[in-house]
């Protein structure tokens, strides 16, 4: 009755958020006195899957069906359900990603399981109660939720659990077939289009983010944001009005009605700090605010701040990062 963790792979690499998920799962397994097995989805490499031992995984299941390389909700759900049956898993852990939310919700119905998404801490198991802490009210609150069904599915918020390293020896990698058929691929994508990434860092996975607001004055000034992001190996983001007027693409819009991020470092440049913006970023570990208005509400939510003009301050910061080496 091992704990099952779902690891998403991309170009042979296990995604960072899935290393966190694997670490979460192996710690839950320890808590319950069992082992953790992983089921891999996406384009995986056997060598990298074996390394999941470092996150405490003992065994990895992998279905070599080529059509599993892209996200297909029907097929992924069936694959993970089959792995859960084989492993008799009472707890299934996935990332709170677009894939994790889509698959986890279907899976919870199929396996008659309790589901908690957006989970930010390891569970507490006390007096027969299994409780997880999750983010609610778009980052403005946390809630402790008891999962009452025998089976439990947990989707872990990105960057909220530290990935383990050296937690164990190499995991064994086993071929596994869920005997998927054409009907399982009914919602297979006709086409997959990936974004151009400035500096190659994906916003949802990033542990550092440089974000710009209306104070940047126009898209022609975004090189200032991009230069600092590149120097820091950070992703770029923006406030809602910036994407509404197409200065930046929609997938960069963070906040209550955009994406929620919780990187280790969030640098806000020329963003006022409206409550809807803060909701999407306030679980970031360190927040830096650069704004020329000392009364900007964002300073109240910040750890470090510079009252100043972004056009003056940003080049200095980029220069200072380069000097650090």
């Amino acid at each position: 009755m091992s704990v099952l963790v779902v690891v998403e792979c991309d170009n042979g690499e296990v995604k960072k958020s899935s290393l966190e998920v694997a670490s979460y799962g192996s710690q839950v397994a320890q808590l319950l006195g069992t082992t953790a097995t992983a089921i891999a989805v996406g384009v995986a490499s056997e060598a990298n899957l074996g390394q999941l031992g470092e996150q405490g995984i003992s065994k990895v299941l992998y279905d070599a069906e080529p059509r599993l390389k892209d996200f297909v909700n029907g097929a992924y759900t069936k694959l993970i359900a089959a792995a859960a049956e084989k492993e008799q898993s009472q707890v299934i852990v996935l990332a709170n990603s677009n894939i994790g939310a889509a698959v986890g919700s279907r899976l919870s119905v199929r396996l008659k399981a309790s589901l908690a998404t957006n989970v930010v801490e390891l569970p507490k198991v006390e007096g027969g109660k299994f409780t997880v802490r999750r983010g609610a009210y778009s980052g403005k609150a946390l809630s402790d939720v008891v999962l009452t069904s025998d089976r439990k599915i947990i989707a872990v918020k990105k960057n909220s659990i530290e990935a383990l390293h050296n937690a164990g020896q190499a995991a064994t990698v086993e071929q596994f077939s869920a005997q998927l058929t054409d009907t399982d691929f009914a919602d297979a994508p006709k086409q997959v289009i990936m974004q151009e990434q400035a500096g190659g860092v994906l916003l949802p996975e990033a542990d550092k983010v440089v974000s710009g607001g209306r104070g940047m004055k126009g898209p022609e000034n975004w090189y200032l944001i991009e230069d600092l992001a590149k120097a820091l190996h950070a992703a770029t983001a923006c406030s809602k009005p910036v994407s509404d007027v197409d200065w930046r693409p929609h997938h960069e819009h963070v906040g209550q009605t955009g994406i929620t991020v919780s990187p280790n470092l969030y640098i806000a440049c020329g963003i006022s700090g409206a409550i809807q913006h803060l909701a999407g970023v306030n679980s970031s570990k360190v927040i830096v605010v650069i704004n020329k208005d000392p009364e900007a509400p964002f300073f109240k939510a910040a750890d470090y701040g510079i009252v100043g003009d972004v056009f003056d301050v940003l080049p200095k910061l980029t220069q200072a990062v380069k000097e650090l080496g």
Partner: protein
Amino acid sequence: MKFLVCISNVPDTTTKITFTPDNKEFNKAGVQFVINPWDEYALTRAIELKEAQGSGTVTVINVGEADTEPNIRKALAIGADDAIRVNAKPTDAFFVAEQIAAIAKEGAYDVILMGRESIDYNGSQVHGMVGELLGIPTVAPAMKLDMSGNTATLEREIEGGKEIVEVTTPFVASCQQPMCEPRIPNMRGIMTARTKPLKVVQPVGSDARTEVAEYALPPKKQGVKLIPAENAGELIKLLRNEAKVI
């Protein structure tokens, strides 16, 4: 074509969140409730598609108690044709999904739309659960939805990109920007909404699978450390040596 749009009733985005003294429930006192902003994309797109097809209906469904009716009327004012309220407290995502699936099945809806998540519970669960309960595909989260006959072409957001997906009716999709420009009610809409049918039905099933034990507020920040603009480079040193994040 019959569209079913699921709307939830959530605190306005400017709400300062507080809880009842035992921390077991959200404190509704003085709070303005709105249609979940993500659901507005679903509602507007359903109306646009119906208009383009020149026939069909848009029904909104809400699982909630009588206090959600002002926002149901607002959805009717925006352009939905009729509404169903399942008279129950929405205890958890599974319970809500069961209600929606039952109504969807009974009414034989072709397209079931909702927002990508609710801004209060942030579950992002109901779409997949409804799809699974009905045994039909769910496309979530969708950034674009076009229909041609019974075939829908959607753009599904994935981390770092998008997938183009084709499904035939019936299906479920969860919606987000930039699918459409959400509409706001006009005067005529508000007048006609008053007389559009709003049916109240009793819930089915009952087994919620989760229980909220307690709410808490996130830890407060210590206060901001300001660095003079002339010395901007100092910030980078602090981020490395003090905060240890770079």
